[in-house]
């Protein structure tokens, strides 16, 4: 598994970066950066701790308890729009630019919207008035599925959102307690093998391309540990590139981190580790969230969002 020892209070010197992750397959790049000594090359020392969810990580990052944390762009934008000062350090995972051209979107998207085979739901619009599970409210899956519904001519506000952990979502789908479940790997695979139908791949349809998972620091931290974070950026991009090139090795690492069977990892979507974050990608996401009503007003985003020399 990943290193999860708590950061030692006294050992935290200048060159140490405390990094929060949520323990997912995308951490493979981080792990290989550690293993291959990319961080050491930059003269930084990385301490990894697992946080339960992105908001907890963001909270810890903004207060300086973590130097940086993994978060998808949507919770980051939620926080940003509420005035939490955050700086994006690097890309963690995402979609390649040609993602939408794929034949089978589930091969690139690690999220999926499943309905029971005999549910009679054929398109996202049919979800109106139905019970749809999400792992958390106002987070990535609710936003992306809402977009699907809206694009299909439906009203996302009419969907009956249910917060359920993945295991309960699968069970409830089977027991007809919900009509649709939005899931993340490895549960997408389990949903498929249980005979459910994939209705859509909401992630890639919403984001289209670019970085989704981000390494984010509190703005204060971005200033005080500027150099180390730049070092982190360089090292992680090196690792991201390496991970893309050596897919087998990174998938093996992902299996180790998540405790899954290698076959299950391989059967899921192909992961992608971008080596840059583009402002336009983030702006597109923010605009869509605003249009859907998840953000009260579109936050003004410019290059200052990103850590730079």
């Amino acid at each position: 598994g990943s290193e999860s020892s708590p950061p030692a209070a006294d050992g935290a010197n200048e060159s140490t970066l405390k990094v929060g992750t949520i323990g997912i397959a995308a951490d493979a790049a981080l792990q290989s950066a550690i293993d291959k000594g990319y961080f050491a090359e930059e003269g930084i020392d990385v301490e990894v701790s697992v946080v339960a969810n992105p908001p907890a990580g963001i909270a810890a990052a903004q207060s300086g308890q973590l130097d940086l944390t993994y978060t998808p762009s949507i919770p980051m934008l939620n926080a940003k729009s509420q005035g939490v000062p955050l700086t994006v350090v690097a890309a963690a995972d995402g979609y390649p630019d040609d993602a939408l051209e794929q034949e089978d979107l589930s091969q690139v998207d690690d999220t999926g919207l499943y309905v029971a085979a005999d549910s009679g739901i054929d398109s996202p619009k049919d979800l109106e008035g139905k019970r749809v599970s999400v792992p958390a409210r106002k987070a990535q899956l609710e936003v992306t599925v809402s977009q699907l519904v809206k694009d299909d001519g439906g009203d996302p506000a009419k969907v009956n959102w249910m917060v359920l952990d993945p295991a309960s979502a699968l069970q409830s789908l089977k027991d007809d307690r919900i009509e649709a479940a939005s899931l993340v790997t490895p549960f997408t695979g389990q949903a498929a093998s249980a005979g459910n139908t994939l209705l859509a791949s909401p992630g890639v349809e919403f984001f289209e391309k670019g970085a989704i998972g981000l390494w984010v620091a509190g703005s204060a931290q971005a200033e005080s540990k500027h150099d180390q974070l730049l070092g982190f950026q360089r090292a992680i991009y090196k690792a991201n590139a390496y991970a893309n090139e050596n897919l087998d090795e990174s998938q093996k690492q992902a299996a180790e981190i998540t405790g899954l069977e290698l076959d299950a990892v391989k059967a899921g979507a192909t992961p992608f580790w971008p080596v840059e974050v583009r402002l336009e990608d983030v702006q597109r996401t923010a605009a869509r969230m605003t249009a859907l009503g998840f953000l009260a007003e579109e936050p003004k985003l410019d290059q200052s969002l990103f850590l730079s020399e």
Partner: protein
Amino acid sequence: MKRKALNWSLGVATPVLLVAAWWAASANSMNTFFPPLSAIMVRFRELWLFDHFGSDILLSLRNLLLGYAVATVAGVVIGFVTALVPVARWALDPVIHFLRGIPPVALVPIFISLIGFGIEMRVASIALAALFPTLIATVDGIRSVDTTLKDVSSVYRLSRGEKLAQVYLPAAGPQIASGMQVSLQVAFIVMIASEMLGSSEGIGAMTLLAQQSFMIPDMWAGILLLGVIGFGANLVFELLKNRILAWHAGSRRLANS
């Protein structure tokens, strides 16, 4: 009399002072996570008075009441059985204490597949968690009933029902009441936790959602509301207890009252 007045003014002054201190200290706060109290109060009014009163507050309170009622009745009944029937105690004790060490989150999937994630699940999880403090306090209360009182009831050949209702229950009453008070607190906590799953209705769900989407003043408003309701619930509990257990307060009052 003077003393009483002093006590009451202390009781009123301390919270007022604390709130004033909070108000002053947070007035110009720029910290996202510790917003000014004034901003919190604005959200408090907007959210709870009375926008979500019927839809969320009443819903949560109904679950709380149902779960708590089940927990206390079951806690007292099971407590009596385990305290007075050794075989039941030996058989149930290990299982009960085994279950208590397990975080409810880990049991949620089992719960959900057995009873779903609707109201039933919320009420059941509140009841289950709030059961134990009452149960344990009841067992302890019954086991510490004065031997002389037990002897008196034997000598006068009180029937089993009389012994239970007229001797054990009142004698264990103070301890049961304090267990029930802890149960109330636990029920409250689980009420909020139970709203983490399923449809996002209720005070707990709204507060957690506010927290997850960084609507920090909303979160604080939720915390305040929880505090106010908890305070009120406890007040009602105290009043009832003081009525029912007046004999206890009287008999235990310090001699210098």
